[in-house]
């Protein structure tokens, strides 16, 4: 008689077959959702008390300070290249700060897919699929790889702080991930070391500090205290495509440029390389774009952003034109387009700046009436007066006679 242990050993191949073919061995499905930023979407920087800059800094979107004190609550902006507008303790800043808080709460509400525990977790060297990652504090001393597609979401929830250390600290995507879909939930302070680079939206409850030369492809939001800048680059301020996605069913590498909804698909050989035919500025916050040619594929991925290569927005279009709305007001918008078979994305078109052809300016006012009312009235009065005087003189002469 076989022992139970030997029976299990004999059944092992069957069990493995069943697990692999029936999905039992599939990696857990992580789910993370990007929070809505509301009116904060156009902001690169939000601070609770002040924004202080030193050195030459580039900020692609708006800057808001709320509640702040009596304006100005920002200093050192003589050397800032600002793509947006400063809202200093005004109603717009208040609204953005409120919406920042809503997004912060939405991040807090999401459960941890991976919880590193009460430790300071160095993310350097990690290759992470989409999901919600939690730790007492996060540290980045080298390269963090985020492995997922353009609509996948990564959320890092610290119980205290986020710190990058050294100029080698950086984040890379494998699989076409998007900085718009990376979130840092920081209940205390976020500090980016000199020369380091990070992607994603930092939502800190206290303060955010970027040391000399640190760069952020995302946003720096602080609730109660300062955002401190020193010769930094903060780009990719806005992402108006809400992203909500599950991770791939396994943590194997995705093919570059895969798109949402591709769980069952077969990539075709996409030969179409679109050409953008025309763009037009429709309003301060919207542009239109159309492209061609039709070569058997009529579905396209349109990526756009505030600079060439900074594709902060994306949308999928069936057809050959679309209007891009809710853009940062009166900013140059770069666009490129690629065909997709809903499984893979083909080669992108050359990037163009959209909306460089507005309507003609209105540089005149209604002309004043040119009919000579005043001279005619004056002449009428004079004639009437003369007639009256002549009549009176005649009466006087007649009376004397």
């Amino acid at each position, binding site marked *: 008689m076989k022992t139970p242990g030997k029976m299990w050993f004999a059944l092992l191949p069957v069990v493995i077959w069943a697990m692999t073919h029936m999905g039992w061995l599939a990696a857990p499905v992580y789910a993370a959702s990007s929070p809505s930023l509301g009116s904060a979407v156009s902001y690169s920087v939000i601070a609770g008390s002040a924004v202080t800059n030193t050195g*030459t800094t*580039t900020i*692609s979107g708006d800057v808001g300070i709320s509640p702040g004190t009596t*304006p*100005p609550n920002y*200093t*050192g*902006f*003589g*050397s*800032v*290249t*600002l*793509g*947006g*507008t*400063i*809202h*200093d303790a*005004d109603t717009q800043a208040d609204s953005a700060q409120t919406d920042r808080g809503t997004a912060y709460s939405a991040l807090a509400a999401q459960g941890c897919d991976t919880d590193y525990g009460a430790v300071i977790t160095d993310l350097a060297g990690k290759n992470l699929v989409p999901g919600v990652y939690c730790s007492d504090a996060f540290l980045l001393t080298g390269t963090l790889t985020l492995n997922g597609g353009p609509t996948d979401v990564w959320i890092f929830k610290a119980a205290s702080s986020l710190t990058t250390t050294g100029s080698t600290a950086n984040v890379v995507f494998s699989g076409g991930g998007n900085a718009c879909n990376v979130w840092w939930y920081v209940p205390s302070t976020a500090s980016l070391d000199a020369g380091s680079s990070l992607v994603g939206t930092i939502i800190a409850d206290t303060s955010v500090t970027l040391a000399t030369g640190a760069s952020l492809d995302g946003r720096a939001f602080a609730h109660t205290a300062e955002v401190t800048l020193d010769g930094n*680059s903060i780009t990719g301020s806005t992402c108006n495509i809400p992203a909500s996605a599950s991770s791939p069913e396994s943590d194997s590498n995705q093919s570059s440029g895969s798109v949402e909804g591709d769980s069952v698909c077969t990539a075709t050989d996409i030969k179409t390389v679109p050409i953008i035919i*025309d763009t*037009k*500025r*429709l*309003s*301060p916050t919207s542009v239109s774009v159309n492209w061609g040619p039709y070569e058997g594929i009529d579905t396209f991925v349109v990526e756009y952003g505030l*600079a*060439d*290569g900074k594709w902060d927005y994306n949308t999928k279009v069936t057809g050959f034109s679309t209007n891009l709305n809710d853009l940062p*007001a*009166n*900013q*140059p918008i*770069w666009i490129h387009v690629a065909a997709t078979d809903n499984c893979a994305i083909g080669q992108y078109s050359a990037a163009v*700046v959209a*909306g*460089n*052809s*507005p*309507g*003609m*300016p*209105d*540089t*005149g*006012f*209604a*002309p*004043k009436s040119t009919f000579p009312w005043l001279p005619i009235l004056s002449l009428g009065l004079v004639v009437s007066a003369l007639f009256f005087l002549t009549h009176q003189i005649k009466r006087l002469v007649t009376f004397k006679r």
Partner: protein
Amino acid sequence: MGISKEVHAQAPTPTPSLAPIPDSVPSISPFHGVPVRLMIPLLHTNATILPMGVTEDGSMQVPDSITDVGWYKLGARPGQTGTAVIAGHVDGKNGEDGVFAQLKSLKPGAAIGVEDAFGNIGAFIVKDSKTYDQSVDTSKIFASQDGTHLNLITCEGAWDQTKQTYTKRLVVFADLMR
């Protein structure tokens, strides 16, 4: 890619800043900063240049003041490869002359000067002037990339009571002097 550096004066009140110009548009002149002053000697014009975007209907914005001119900040800067566009009023609400009231008298060969935020002055030479319908396709006026152009625009034609605008636009085409 980087974004070209520019300097903004610090102000106590929040002010929208100028759009950075992508550096994939190559500069061919050391004169390419944000334009701040327009000078047309023949017309005795010396006007402040304000950065402009577009209005809600997608038209280029213009300054409120009839003595200032507006530069289309979503296009090229004067001195950069491409087309820089500056617009100014032809008249005011009370019929007084606007900054570009005499623009129609600017003939080919006339000189135009533009000062940038760094104090550099670039000189442009008028090549041509044309009148267009107000609703014309503006791509060749705003987006030509075949040179270093400066186009000045103002209103012309008859007043359209229905549309509350003039029916025509005068465009003066100028190129950077080499």
